[in-house]
């Protein structure tokens, strides 16, 4: 879960209380490696592949994916990041500020973009990210890799590569770091 969501959680300033650990560091490492293989298989290598992490939760998984590619293939695809704050559909409804400047290292026209995020939930962040990518060219395709798919989609969006499918209640909160995935809730 991104830091800004923690800050925006009700009541503002609430803290995350874990109920269960659903993945440990080793399981995450294996999932990242498997997703890297799946990406290589589907795209026939890394030609024209650009990895783009979503601020803030997708940054670390994106970096780990790139490192996995380096181990497997010996090359690192270009790595960028996108902050969707300016493209969200809830601007003006809640306090959301940008986290870090968007950094797209290469022209995206003709590229295969792998969007990376930690948790796929309603799909609204991914919609905003697709919108944001438009400003940087017309990719040949955009694929989505997430560490956890927890369901509850509100838009017609699905992931191409999933670390773990995690059934959850709407009110629960999933916290992803590279040392573990926890499910819990926000408390005062």
């Amino acid at each position, binding site marked *: 879960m991104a830091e800004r969501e923690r800050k925006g959680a009700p009541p503002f300033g609430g803290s995350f209380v874990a109920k269960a650990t659903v993945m440990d560091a080793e399981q995450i490492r294996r999932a990242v490696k498997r997703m890297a293989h799946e990406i290589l298989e589907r795209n026939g290598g890394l030609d024209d592949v650009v990895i783009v992490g979503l601020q803030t939760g997708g940054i670390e998984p994106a970096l780990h994916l790139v490192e996995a590619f380096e181990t497997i293939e010996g090359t690192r695809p270009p790595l960028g990041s996108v902050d969707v704050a300016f493209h969200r559909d809830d601007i003006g*409804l809640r306090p959301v500020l940008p986290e870090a400047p968007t950094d797209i290292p290469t022209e995206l026209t003709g590229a295969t973009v792998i969007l990376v995020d930690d948790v796929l939930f309603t799909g609204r962040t991914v919609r905003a990210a697709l919108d944001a990518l438009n400003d940087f060219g017309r990719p040949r395709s955009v694929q989505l890799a997430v560490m956890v798919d927890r369901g509850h989609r509100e838009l017609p969006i699905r992931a191409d590569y999933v670390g773990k499918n995690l059934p959850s209640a709407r009110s629960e909160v999933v916290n992803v770091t590279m040392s573990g995935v926890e499910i819990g809730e926000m408390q005062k």
Partner: protein
Amino acid sequence: MKHLLSIDELTTDELQELLRITPSFAEVASRRIAKVPALRGLTVATLFYEDSTRTRLSFEVAAKRLSADTLNVSVASSSVNKGESLRDTAETIEAMGIDAVVVRHASSGAPWQLTKWLDASVINAGDGWHQHPTQALLDCFTLQQELGSLEGRHIAIVGDIKHSRVARSDVSAFTRLGATVTLVAPPTLLPPATETWPVTVSHDLDSVLTDVDAVYLLRMQKERMRESLVPDLREYTALYGLTAARASKLGTKIPILHPGPMNRGVEIAADVPDLDQVVVVDQVRNGVAVRMAVLFMLLGSGNSGLPTDSLPAMAEEVPA
């Protein structure tokens, strides 16, 4: 945060938060397609009762980069010339459906007055000799770019402090970010009661320049100088102007700032603005990014209208 009226009304946290998010807006402005839909459907009006090129344009560009619509009320060709009051003009443009008014006025306090009459957000783009908060923000951002941080840095503000809303805003912002400030000016161009300001005052530019991390030059405001406050401009230049000799003694590492427009040959020698350490162009570029951040903070970040307890629960609304 609904209005931005004075730099003093921002908490130091808000000031730092604005400076933290500004690079995200600078990145948008640097894109090939330099426009994001953040403030789509909102309207920003600029209402300038004093001349301005860069501030008005800067706000207009900032609003357009965020997809807001902009309205320019050109006072020179408006009903103001027929004697319409500030209140009537403001209420007229608000009735057309605007979300923010950017106002510049010769009278100190005019933007505060507007907040009593309007529902829209009010942004002070300069009121008399009083405040110019977005200028202070862009100056802080530019100095951070040049110096890394303002903490422990020594900044000299040189020139017509008395008539300068820029100086008043900058002193507050610079010192709250940890800098020490020395005002350098002839006694006639200092405001009364500088002893209550968090600054030191000097009348000797050359000695101050031996120990500074940045120099901020102010414009000699000839249009405000109805009384003769300096014997003549050439003497002012000799004592308080950044001459080529002073600039070369300063070296190439010390950034030189100026809010513009520059009077070449008065507060700054004719060829000094072309030196590399003069960051006036960066100030203008950063001005757009800072004003985008301010508009987004006031209109787009959800801090303005709704009380926080009326927000929907996070789990239903915030995508993970």
